[in-house]
């Protein structure tokens, strides 16, 4: 009897002891982008400093969104940290689905986060996700083709200049196309580009009372300009091209200009992958003289879902991964061109980073985007290339399909806009905005 009690006691002590020494493990959901892969490779640094193990779950972007939404709404607690964007953060933060990051340590220096990024990841001034890297969009162009066309790219060009240059650079016989732009349907694909571009033309998704505005002259001008330009100076089959397809075309020397995410700059200037690495220039996304540029703002950020049991450890990880020290760690291991860009002011003041050819243009692009006042006229939503409301993703993907079909020549601009107006009106009525 005594021995069985002793045995029980010993087992209990052993269990307590083991659980005491067992390291905590954080489960982090992320996407397969270069900067995230680098972070995974450097996780040992975090584990050695804190004793906390990290388990990575890498998913395809849309699967990640669906998984994370399911987990967060059912309080599943499967993830301790999740990688989310500037679209989800304000919506989820407002729903109390995320843990507020309002008690980060003094060493972390939260004021060093670029104001545009901090603003886009906050709800009523409270930060809900820490930016791991940030991006805007800008023009990447071939300096050699621009010279051959006898033109010179200003730092802040207009759309008219870009269109003239694109037509001048086009040489379809040799498969060189003046401009490559997104055409593949999706709220994060063609609609990210077109919504941002429409801002430069003074268009907006909704007026102050949430009435869809696709019947406006500005949207018609935006879409006509885009489709005419792509027909004359774009690559064939552009309606199927997203970020990766255009990246491939540019790297093979088939695009004179490409307006897309600033993060692409490190890919097109990398001689291992790009055949045009030494002849790429950068400029701000174009405007039309109305005071707004067509450049977007996006951040891949780390957030803590409210369902996790490991808040304190998760915060420790976020402080590590988005700190100044982490940037130094990447620079030491992979070089300054590979540090996560667009999150911290101090990075752009660092003399080592100033030599990177696209650094200053990236910063200027980020600084010139304003999510709270994205276009010429006032809007009721936050976001440059999206409207941060839950209905936007589904609605914009449908609208994107109509615009993509118009680019493919399957319908006219007027038909596409009429359908877009109908889709948006129906959706907004169903959601109770109208």
């Amino acid at each position, binding site marked *: 009897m005594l021995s069985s009690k002793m045995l029980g006691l010993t087992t209990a002590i052993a269990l307590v002891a083991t659980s005491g020494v067992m390291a905590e493990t954080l489960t982090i959901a992320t996407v*397969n*982008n270069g900067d995230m892969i680098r972070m*995974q490779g450097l996780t040992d640094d975090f584990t050695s400093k804190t004793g906390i193990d990290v388990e990575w779950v*890498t998913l395809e972007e849309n699967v990640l969104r669906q*998984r994370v939404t399911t987990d967060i709404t059912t309080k599943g607690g499967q993830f301790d940290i999740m990688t989310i964007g500037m679209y989800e953060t304000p919506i989820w933060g407002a729903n109390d689905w995320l843990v507020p990051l309002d008690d980060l340590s003094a060493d972390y220096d939260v004021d060093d986060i670029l104001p545009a990024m901090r603003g886009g990841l906050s709800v009523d001034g409270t930060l809900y996700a820490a930016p791991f890297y940030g991006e805007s969009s800008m023009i990447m162009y071939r300096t050699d083709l621009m010279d051959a066309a006898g033109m010179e790219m200003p730092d802040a060009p207009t759309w008219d200049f870009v269109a003239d240059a694109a037509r001048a650079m086009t040489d379809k016989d040799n498969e060189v196309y003046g401009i490559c732009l997104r055409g593949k349907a999706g709220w994060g694909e063609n609609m990210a580009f077109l919504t941002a571009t429409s801002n430069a033309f003074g268009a907006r998704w909704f007026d102050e009372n949430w009435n869809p505005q696709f019947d406006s002259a500005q949207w018609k001008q935006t879409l006509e300009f885009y489709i005419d330009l792509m027909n004359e100076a774009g690559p064939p089959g552009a309606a199927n091209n997203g970020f990766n397809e255009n990246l491939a075309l540019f790297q*093979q020397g088939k695009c004179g200009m490409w307006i897309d995410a600033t993060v692409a700059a490190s890919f097109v200037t990398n001689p291992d992958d790009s055949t045009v690495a030494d002849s790429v220039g950068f400029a701000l996304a174009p405007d039309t003289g109305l005071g707004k540029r067509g450049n977007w703002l996006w951040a891949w950020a780390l957030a803590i879902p409210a369902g996790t049991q490991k808040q304190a450890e998760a915060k420790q990880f976020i402080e590590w991964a988005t700190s100044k020290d982490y940037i130094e760690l990447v620079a030491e291991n992979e070089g300054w061109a590979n540090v996560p860009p667009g999150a911290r002011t101090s990075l752009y003041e660092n003399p080592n980073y100033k030599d990177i050819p696209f650094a200053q243009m990236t910063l200027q692009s980020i600084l010139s985007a304003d999510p709270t006042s994205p276009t010429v006229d006032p809007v009721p939503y936050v976001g440059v290339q999206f409207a941060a409301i839950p209905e936007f993703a589904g609605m914009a993907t449908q609208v994107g399909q109509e615009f993509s079909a118009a680019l493919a020549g399957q319908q006219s601009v007027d038909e596409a806009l009429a359908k877009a107006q109908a889709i948006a009106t129906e959706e907004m009525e169903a959601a109770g905005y109208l």
Partner: protein
Amino acid sequence: MARAVSTRTRAIYTVIAWAIGLLIFFPILWIFLTSFKTEADAISDPPLFFFFDWTTENYGIVQERSNYVRFLYNSIIISVGSTILGLLIAVPAAWSMAFVPGKRTKDILLWMLSTKMLPAVGVLYPIVLIARSLGIYDTYVLLIGVLTLINLPIIVWMLYTYFKEIPVDILEAARMDGASLRNEILYVLTPMALPGIASTMLLNIILAWNEAFWTLTLTTVDAAPLTAFIASYSSPEGLFYAKLSAASTMAIAPILVMGWFSQKQLVRGLTFGAVK
């Protein structure tokens, strides 16, 4: 009496068969070829067929970045587990439907099949909530259970069709010889239906192996199978086709090899009863 087939007709059929076979196989071949390209070659336009610099670096990167063996192990446990559990339920169910049908047997069969018409996402939240409250999220138990339920209608239907082909007289004879119900199913019916059961089993393993919606939604780390392994190689910002192809090749190789070796059994089972 077999009809005489001219050599010409036979040649035409052979060519057509090969053409269809190659067309169906082409995507797999293309994935295999792409997995040996560099990322730049993988997206080159026009596409490169055989003449590129073959490299195995993608396989190296994938091995380094992911624990392939863990995903493979999970895939095997889940697909084999759900198949065995499914057969344990489906063999008696199909037996009763084939040999002692009731008035509503046909309706039940149709109703079972109709559950396949429901979009999976329609029951996503109930299943996630049940899994959460039972504390079985991201476990083999959950995955085996869900995949069994999903594939059960197909298993029952297939077995039902095979069992219908077996003359009921033989079972009756066994019964008259004093065989109990258990012995009748185990020693008389099962050996005769073995080709059918084997092909049902193979097909179900393939279906479970390839299932992506539930295996991606209900797993995180511990029970994540090869579908999660593949999904981790797609990227919104950056080139990934070559690495994704390498991951896909590694994920489909085991099931492809299994299919290759068992194709005779598979074909025999699938055409069982089709020719009188």
